[in-house]
């Protein structure tokens, strides 16, 4: 069999260090924001007792599910034996770990007591999905590192398939688990449905792949490695499939909600009257995150252009953040219904929110913390591809799949 | 009780003397020995600043070792970084008042202690498992690892299982500064810990632990790559020219 040759990322030192410096600056700002919020307490953020999870969770959840989605590419290669995806596997694993770490870090820094991280890692409540998620996350990191090892070390090659399959299953569990964090919140109208889990799975596929493709394009362009048109086409079609799946599950989600008749209020809220949240849903989640990229990918001309495909990936990511915002923040802002048939005319002291939409405006530090998490993920990736052999030397069609290119030229 | 304190006081005066004198002697010897030729391993930095950065990367990240052997790097780095944190944490016994920075690092020192022991265990395992490393290992290599692991384990035991009287430990060492012998708690673990530490201090200047200062004097790492721009010549080589 033909070997796939991997090489460290050979970006010019100045450019490379410049990139690291930028990422480091983003991370530093994120870190300072976290410190600021931690020092003063959460009152300096937009979060309240009504909206308890804000923008940091939007970023964290986005990064975590993207992490699991990023591994998809490797899974396709090993689990489903699609040889052409094999060269993409290592970067996929690295990106998965990096995104996961970025997301978890944001999550941890948004805790009320991050100093008790050790408590979180040593005392578990096994009835909590969240606790299972901690396992799922750390297990994920460990398994992917093992998986990477089987890909990189020839002694481990034989194990690649079983480990890869295990990682694949684990990853499904992880996204399902993340989705279930919300799915099992019976007290919140928007969440209480099992459809959230599969929705999160397809979202993870799309977001992970979009990030993967952007990183791949950038890394390959920066040190002049080729990506063949067949490869590009394959990736972009995959992305289209996932986007379509998101749209489909979104539809199902709202249909189930509408079907459960007493939920029509929250449906009205999301789809019609929810102001910002309605806007984010239609413009962000559906249009920018779904229809536009689909349009680009199936456009006869634009779909041939790398920069347009990259733009489509960017849109999927923006749409994903919007979707997370609607799911996480929107659902908290919507009042919890405790007294059916009654209107709440007073709920504690005047500022205390009950029975009406809770206000939430993210503060700057929250946003910066979120970006810091993205920065961490990218920094890990950038260092990883530089010091270890993650990137194949070429994704030109003839190197990846000699038969395919023979066929096409024939 | 106070006899024990006296013995330990004497031991630590001796160990500190050996450590300082021995190291100073070695460092002076290294500094005095000329490096007649430019032998940086290239690609090497072409400026002093670049060399400082290269050296920093070597000291902080063990860059070359990373390129050479990933497993050794993981364990080695864990051990050294752990050791570094533990050392910072230990400064609380030796400084009064304790600087804020040290105070803030305190809690991490414990993780450092654990990392250190795990790292050492990994390094030791390698000495048995990898045939090439087994071949180059001398008895002393095993003993140094054993010594460090014992120090770590006795320390962790004190931290987690059999607590000792930290106040007295600190007072003992504060006393040594001014030549007073205070009471040292006669807890067996503490005595063991301290005995091994004194041993470590004594062998430091006479063993491979010299790698710590050695790295800074390694010509293949600390030289600037500018032989064409600047003439580099050792005094003894200069003398050849006068003939």
């Amino acid at each position, binding site marked *: 069999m033909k070997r796939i040759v991997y090489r460290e990322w050979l970006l010019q030192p100045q450019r490379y260090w410049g990139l690291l410096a930028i990422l480091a600056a983003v991370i530093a700002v994120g870190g300072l924001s976290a410190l600021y919020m931690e020092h003063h307490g959460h009152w300096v953020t937009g979060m309240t007792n009504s909206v308890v999870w804000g923008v940091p969770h939007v970023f964290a959840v986005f990064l975590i599910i993207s992490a699991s989605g990023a591994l998809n590419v490797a899974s396709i290669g090993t689990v489903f034996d699609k040889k052409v995806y094999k060269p993409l596997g290592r970067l996929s694993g690295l990106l998965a770990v990096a995104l996961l770490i970025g997301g978890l870090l944001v999550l941890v820094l948004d805790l009320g007591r991050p*100093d008790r991280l050790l408590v979180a890692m040593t005392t578990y409540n096994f009835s909590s999905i969240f606790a299972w998620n901690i396992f799922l996350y750390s297990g994920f990191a460990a398994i992917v590192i093992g998986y990477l090892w089987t890909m990189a070390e020839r002694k481990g090659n034989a194990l690649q398939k079983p480990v890869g399959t295990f990682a694949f299953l684990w990853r499904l569990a992880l996204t399902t688990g993340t989705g279930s964090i919300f799915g099992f919140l019976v007290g919140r109208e928007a969440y209480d449905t099992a459809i959230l889990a599969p929705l999160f799975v397809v979202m993870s596929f799309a977001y992970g792949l979009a990030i993967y493709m952007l990183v791949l394009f950038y890394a390959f362009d920066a040190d002049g490695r080729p990506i063949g048109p067949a490869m590009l086409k394959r990736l972009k079609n995959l992305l289209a499939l996932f986007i379509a799946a998101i749209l489909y599950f979104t539809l199902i989600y709202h249909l189930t909600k509408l079907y459960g008749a007493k939920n029509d209020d929250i449906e009205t809220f999301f789809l019609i009257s929810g102001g910002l949240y309605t806007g984010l849903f239609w413009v962000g989640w559906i249009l920018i995150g779904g229809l536009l990229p689909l349009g680009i990918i199936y456009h006869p001309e634009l779909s041939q252009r790398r920069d347009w495909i990259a733009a489509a990936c960017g849109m999927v990511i923006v749409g994903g953040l919007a979707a997370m915002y609607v799911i996480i923040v929107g659902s908290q802002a919507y009042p919890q219904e405790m007294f059916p048939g009654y209107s709440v005319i007073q709920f504690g002291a005047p500022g205390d929110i009950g029975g009406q939409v809770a206000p939430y405006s993210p503060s700057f530090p929250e946003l910066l913390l979120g970006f810091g998490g993205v920065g961490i993920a990218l920094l890990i990736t950038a260092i990883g591809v530089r010091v270890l052999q993650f990137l194949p030397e070429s994704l030109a069609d003839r190197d990846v799949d000699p038969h395919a290119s023979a066929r096409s030229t024939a | 009780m106070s006899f024990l304190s006296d013995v330990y006081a004497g031991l630590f005066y001796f160990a500190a003397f050996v450590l300082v004198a021995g190291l100073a002697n070695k460092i002076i010897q290294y500094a005095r020995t000329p490096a007649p030729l430019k032998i940086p391993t290239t690609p090497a930095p072409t400026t002093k600043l670049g060399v400082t950065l290269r050296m920093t990367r070597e000291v902080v990240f063990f860059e070359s070792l990373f390129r050479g052997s990933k497993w050794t790097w993981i364990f080695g780095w864990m051990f050294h970084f752990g050791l570094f944190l533990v050392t910072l944490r230990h400064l*609380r016994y030796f400084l*009064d*008042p*304790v600087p804020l920075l*040290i*105070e803030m690092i*305190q*809690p991490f020192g414990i993780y450092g202690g654990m990392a250190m022991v795990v790292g050492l265990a990994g390094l030791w395992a390698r000495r048995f498992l990898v045939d090439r490393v087994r071949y180059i290992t001398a008895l002393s290599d095993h003993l140094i690892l054993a010594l460090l692991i014992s120090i770590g384990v006795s320390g962790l035991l004190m931290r987690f299982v059999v*607590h*000792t*009287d*930290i*106040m007295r430990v*600190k*007072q003992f060492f504060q006393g040594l500064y001014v030549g007073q012998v*205070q*009471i040292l708690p006669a807890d067996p673990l503490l005595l063991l810990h301290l005995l091994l530490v004194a041993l470590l201090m004594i062998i430091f200047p006479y063993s491979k632990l010299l790698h710590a200062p050695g790295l800074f004097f390694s010509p293949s790492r600390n030289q600037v790559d500018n032989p064409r721009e600047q003439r580099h010549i050792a005094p003894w080589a200069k003398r050849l020219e006068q003939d």
Partner: protein
Amino acid sequence: AVLGVGSAAYAEGVGDFVLPSSKAASLENCVEPTEYMRRNHFELIRHQRDETVYGGIRGDSHGLSGCVSCHVGYDDTGAPIEIDAEGQFCRSCHAYASVEMNCFDCHATVPRGEAWNHEVAAAHAHLTGSAPIGPTAAER
């Protein structure tokens, strides 16, 4: 007012950190032998903490509120001084040994509104900030 600060920081013998103005000063021993307390007091409080929080056991002197009530120092006017203040009992040691202790992020540093028990409450009625004692349901 802050008595014994100087000696506290450099105390040599066992029990020398105890503040002369505290209740402990007049007693022979801590809740356990003092040698033991020096080495293991935090294990004790931690153990007691779980007993109290999960088991509801509050009738034991090993709790943090117990420590505070016995070891807190008083100024000339008889007002208690925060136990983690500079030179006070907990701080004098912990600063010297540079051991971080975040208990007092949450816990009161002077006896103030002790657990609801009218005996305890009555005993501290004279202290500023104590919870007002009302008649209990039983008494009414």
